[in-house]
């Protein structure tokens, strides 16, 4: 996958296998529980979508989280009004996010560079601020939009139990989990994860097709030299707008899926730092590469879930074998970087990656691959040349 010659079909098959085995692979790392695995898949979709815009066209949107939020709100409203079936919810999520992206993109794409970034940021912040305050009748503000027992849900037959219904796919509940024992390891097989993972594979496949299509080629050309493209008879605006809308629909899908896994939509989903997190995921993994954004999303969600849980007690446990004084000192130091200090680690790792590995983790893997097997490398790089622009730091301008 990294720097070796593998056809797209093989990549896709390997990808499907890895995605299917995640519950098994993540379990020993303590990450094999439904909520986190669902995040891997959903934020993977989000990052793939963001990469179609940023990785291909180079337009850095700092407001992408707004589409995620819009998708979630749409889905929850569908659950409240129509049915707990996830299909109508997801369709509406994608559509509404697409419409939002069309409007915001149409306006924002009149500018480029940092002006574009600021415009998207401004739109997203307006959405967030309004959702938090005056739009509370629609968004339920700070608390977030939730299901209630007395929601109409006109398509579902009334449930008599005093419990809230669960989002489902024609009766298959998203939170249905089967625990199996594999060689002493508890592996949680969660339907919601496999459902999201199916969308991840679909999203990956579509992104791959886009990367390899003339449309994708035009998007890459937009990133490299928009001026030349104009004088080559190409109207770049529809291309960037199409990329923006596709990317927004990906985010809408991700937002919808988040709501399917956990039927709540909160305004914080749209705040600008959430958009920043999407950028972080993409860059960390490797912008402009196919797999990078998914890897970045997985790493960040994993770190967020695990690092923040290491409280001082846990850390002290690691150093118990050491003499008391030393253990205390080490605990004090390490605890600054985990638990409530995990943001510090995130910031540091991020600076290191941007400084030394601007192509992200994928470039790192490629470099390691380069050390391991130098033969044939040059040819591969040429082959991959057009797929790794994100990894290049010296784009002539």
């Amino acid at each position, binding site marked *: 996958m990294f720097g070796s010659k593998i056809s797209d079909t093989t990549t896709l098959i390997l990808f499907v296998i890895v995605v299917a085995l995640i519950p098994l692979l993540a379990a020993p790392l303590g990450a094999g529980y439904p909520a986190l695995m669902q995040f891997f898949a959903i934020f993977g979709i989000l990052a793939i979508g963001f990469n179609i815009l940023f990785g291909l066209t180079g337009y850095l949107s700092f407001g992408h989280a707004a589409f995620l939020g819009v998708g979630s709100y749409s889905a929850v409203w569908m659950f409240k009004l129509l049915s707990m079936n996830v299909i109508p919810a997801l369709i509406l999520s994608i559509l509404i996010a697409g419409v939002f992206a069309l409007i915001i993109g149409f306006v924002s794409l009149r500018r480029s560079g940092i002006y574009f970034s600021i415009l998207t940021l401004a739109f997203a912040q307006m959405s967030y601020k309004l959702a938090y305050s005056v739009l509370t009748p629609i968004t339920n503000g700070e608390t977030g939009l939730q299901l209630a027992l007395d929601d109409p849900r006109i398509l579902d037959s009334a449930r008599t139990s005093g419990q809230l219904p669960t989002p489902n796919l024609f009766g298959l509940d998203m939170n249905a989990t089967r625990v199996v024992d594999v060689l002493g390891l508890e592996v949680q097989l969660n339907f919601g994860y496999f459902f999201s993972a199916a969308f991840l594979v679909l999203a990956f496949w*579509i992104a791959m*097709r*886009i990367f*390899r*299509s*003339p*449309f*994708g*080629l*035009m998007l*890459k*050309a937009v*990133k*490299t*030299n928009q*001026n*030349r*493209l*104009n*004088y*080559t*008879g*190409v*109207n*770049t605006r*529809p*291309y960037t707008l*199409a990329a923006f809308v*596709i990317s927004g629909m990906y985010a809408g899908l991700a937002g919808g899926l988040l709501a399917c896994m956990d039927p709540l939509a909160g305004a914080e989903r749209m705040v600008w730092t959430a958009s920043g997190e999407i950028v972080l995921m993409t860059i960390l993994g490797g912008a402009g590469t196919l797999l990078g954004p998914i890897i970045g999303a997985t790493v960040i969600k994993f770190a967020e879930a695990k690092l923040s849980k290491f409280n001082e007690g846990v850390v002290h446990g690691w150093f118990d074998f050491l003499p008391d004084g030393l253990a205390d000192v080490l605990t004090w130091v390490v605890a600054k970087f985990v638990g409530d200090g995990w943001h510090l680690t995130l910031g540091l790792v991020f600076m290191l990656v941007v400084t030394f590995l601007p192509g992200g983790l994928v470039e790192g893997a490629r470099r390691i691959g380069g050390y391991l097997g130098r033969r044939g490398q040059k040819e591969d790089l*040429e*082959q991959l*040349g*057009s797929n790794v*622009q994100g990894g*290049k730091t*010296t*784009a*002539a301008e």
Partner: protein
Amino acid sequence: MGILEVQNVNKRFGGLQALDDVNLNVEENTVHAIIGPNGAGKSTLLNCFVGRLTPDTGTVMFDGQSLIGRKPHEINQMGVSRVFQTPEIFTDLTILENVMIPSFAKRDGAFKLSPFAAVKAESAIRDHAEDMLGQVGMLEKRHMVASAMSRGDKRRLEMAMCLAQSPKLLLLDEPTAGMARADTNATIDLLKQIADSRPITFVVIEHDMHVVFSLADRISVLAQGHVIVEDHPSNIKGNPKVREAYLGDAHE
């Protein structure tokens, strides 16, 4: 009736009259050179042909249609291609991809949403692009990333990109600027060969008189935004007006 007809074009930037009542008539399938001292308005004029600038007054007709108010991509789709002074190419893409993009633009128009087509499957486009690269002698390098090329190669690539669209009119903005003499001669040969091998009209802006007189069928001399002479090359050399315009700038 010329393929490109410019009538009474004026363009003013603040206090500067950049173009002053410019008239120009470019015959089809000729090489028409526009020369003039620095600041004469050559680039401004060229930008009025491609939609980057809009003249304040006057008309620019291409193939019987007005170019005024059209966007660059629309003008290109009408059959006008442009080579820049500093090569404008897609540095992050491979050379082959660079040449395929104009072919796609020619075939698909200004915009086509085709996310599920595969570039790989477009053998006609690729063959055409490879053909063009062959014509400029760059076929072997087609898998190289464009940013890794020499400046001369970049210019030849840009030429191939323009040719891939089989333009009716090719605008060249100082195609040999900054080149060594040997490269310049090679470029002249290449342009001659292109002009001879197909129906195409060149409008060349050039400082290098060697290039101009090797190529041009007709020459317009621009000075202070005004066309002072338009004539056959043999008549230009001795023209006193031209000498006057170039005075103090004579070694150009």
